[in-house]
């Protein structure tokens, strides 16, 4: 196939990133990495109007495209193996082999070079070439062909001078090996590449950092000066587990100073007790809106973003007090946080539940009552259904003329939790019903943007209508906010207890 051959040549020939000339309008941004069976290379990224863009001439060189510019009409024709993409400047729609697709931004010409949104490769080029092209924006990867590129989330759960615990979550589950090589623990995966999501790992005496390996599908744990030994624990499923833990043990005594050091061995008690799988360790609370986004506005001038933050803080302290569970607030102040970022903060902190707090609005002042929403399956069609049935997070399959939407399974993390989210929503709704007024149809599903990427049971709670004068007053009052907090707390406890029984 022409694409593969061209890619092979391009990947072999180009080792260094292609430098992008910055201009007055386009700014360069961190490059994407193109991963093919033949190797990797960098793809330069320019920022234009807030969008990440690829240079069309670079894509043409890499993928063997022919680009023709229609100077009269101002259009662009991009062809590959006799099939064409037609783009019109100023329009974010493109015709791919006769089918219309939408892009987040139109193609723009800057300094004599055409720039196209990064989504162009997955939405236009993938279907055109019938090759799977997977665009992973958070890790800035473009994966071409049927490659196994598991997503590897690493978090440092606990660290002191004596021991540290690193949890790895791998999706889809991929066999791995752990080896100790000159001061580093190398975790290698049987895959073509890895998509590491390392978050922020604080430098400590045992773990100095976690870095992706440049040349191999592996992640390296840089060990600190206090390192003595390590132990890899497969939490479930053996060497092909989707979740495993590496415990790093230090030379410092774990017991108070003066006591003899307790040498770690197989007979030693677990360093850190692993909670049973049904238990909750962390809960993400998402105060809706914030910063530039006021959300709904009450008759009395109350802003939704203020109400949601106030209730979130009350809930945070109630959960800490009553349950002793870690709470992650997706924002803790009047800041603008993108909807993807909210789910991402919950995911990166390994929250076990995601609760998004909102206040409602209606065209009618009479509309009143709390409502609980969870993500509905039917709005996302077949993609979600397939993702929800898959045992792990299925890798996306692109190309072949199927509809290319951004809602690919790995991004639709919530698909695996439809049932549990519905159960959580039901319990929270029942607890709310005992304490606050409810709308006539208080339990609903819908395509909620903030829930889509949440990798855990997730719900939206609309506490009441700010457009209703009585409810606007209640929403800012302490008794009402406490009633909502109490209902959420009881709902969380019921959900936890039900999960323990399963």
């Amino acid at each position: 196939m022409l694409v593969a051959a061209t890619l092979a040549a391009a990947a072999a020939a180009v080792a260094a990133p292609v430098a992008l000339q910055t201009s007055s309008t386009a700014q360069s941004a961190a490059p994407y990495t193109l991963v093919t069976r033949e190797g990797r290379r960098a793809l330069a990224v320019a920022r234009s109007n807030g969008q990440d863009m690829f240079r069309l001439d670079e894509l043409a060189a890499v993928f063997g495209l022919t680009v023709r510019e229609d100077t009269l009409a101002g259009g662009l024709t991009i062809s590959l193996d006799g099939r064409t993409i037609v783009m019109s400047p100023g329009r974010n729609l493109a015709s791919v082999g006769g089918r219309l697709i939408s892009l987040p931004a139109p193609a723009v010409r800057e300094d004599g070079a055409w720039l196209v949104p990064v989504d162009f490769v997955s939405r236009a080029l993938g279907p055109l070439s019938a090759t799977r092209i997977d665009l992973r924006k958070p890790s800035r990867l473009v994966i071409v062909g049927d490659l196994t590129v598991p997503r590897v989330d690493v978090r440092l759960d606990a660290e002191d001078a004596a021991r540290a615990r690193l949890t790895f979550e791998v999706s889809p589950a991929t066999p791995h090996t752990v080896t100790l090589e000159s001061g580093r623990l190398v975790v290698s995966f049987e895959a073509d590449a890895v998509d590491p999501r390392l978050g922020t790992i604080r430098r400590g005496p045992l773990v100095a950092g976690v870095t992706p390996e440049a040349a191999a599908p592996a992640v390296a744990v840089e060990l600190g000066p206090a390192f003595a030994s390590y132990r890899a624990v497969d939490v479930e499923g053996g060497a092909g587990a989707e979740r495993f833990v590496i415990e790093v043990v230090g030379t410092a005594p774990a017991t108070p100073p003066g006591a003899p050091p307790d040498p770690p061995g197989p007979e030693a008690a677990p360093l850190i007790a692993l909670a049973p799988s049904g238990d909750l360790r962390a809960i993400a609370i998402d105060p809706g809106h914030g910063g530039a986004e006021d959300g709904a506005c009450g008759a009395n001038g109350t802003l939704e973003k203020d109400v949601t933050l106030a209730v979130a803080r009350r809930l945070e302290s109630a959960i800490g007090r009553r349950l002793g569970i870690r709470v992650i607030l997706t924002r803790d102040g009047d800041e603008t946080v993108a909807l993807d970022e909210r789910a991402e903060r919950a995911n990166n902190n390994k929250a076990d539940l995601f609760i998004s707090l909102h206040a409602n609005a209606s065209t009618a002042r009479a509309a009143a009552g709390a409502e609980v929403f969870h993500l509905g399956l039917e709005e996302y069609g077949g993609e979600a259904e397939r993702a929800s049935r898959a045992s792990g997070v299925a890798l996306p399959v692109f190309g072949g003329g199927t509809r290319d939407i951004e809602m690919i399974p790995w991004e639709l993390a919530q698909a695996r939790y439809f049932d549990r989210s519905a159960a959580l929503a039901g319990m929270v709704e029942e607890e709310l019903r005992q304490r606050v007024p409810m709308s006539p149809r208080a339990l609903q599903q819908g395509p909620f943007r903030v829930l889509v990427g949440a990798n855990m049971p997730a719900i939206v709670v609309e506490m009441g209508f700010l457009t209703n004068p009585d409810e606007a007053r209640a929403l800012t009052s302490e008794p009402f906010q406490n009633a909502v907090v109490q209902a959420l707390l009881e709902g969380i406890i019921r959900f936890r207890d039900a999960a323990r029984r399963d």
Partner: protein
Amino acid sequence: MRRYLIAGLAIALVAAVVVWLLVVAVPRWYAEPPAEPPAEAGPAPEPGETRKIHATLYFVSPGGLRLVAVEREVPYGEGLAEQARRIVEAQIGDAPAPYAAPFPAGTSMRALFVTDRGDAFVDLSREASSRHPGGSLAETLTVYALVNALTVNLPAVSAVQILVDGQEVDTLAGHIDLRQPLPRNLRWVENPDAPVQQ
């Protein structure tokens, strides 16, 4: 001579169809709420006449919690995209009493395309988002009023994606995912099978 004969027969046939539509089909539509959307079966346009079709539009109930299906007259549009535009224009306009409009005042339609797969892309002016009152419910009703108005009246439209000011958007007001075409959803409609006759 023979050609004239064929032309004459064709004209007679068209006339017969038009008469049948006017005498039999149209009164039938008036007589009972249409189970089938009427737009597809709309008669051929006649020049110089502003034809109307009956379409089911969706407005917010007086209580503010549901959509109400209301049957309204909408200008006839030649072809699928044109008919879709006429329906959207009526849907984003004022609501008949006692209902409320699901779209913010000042919202207009910038463009509309229908793909050969039946996905309609409706590009609305920025008011659809900037003047939206917010709230999950109000936003849900806004989105599904438009999605349902197109998918219910035009069987060739299977899903609708709303764009704002020429751009693909995440949401209108922070809740409902607009990154892909949404299929019809009548769960929010009070009377999906029996539109209010206006």
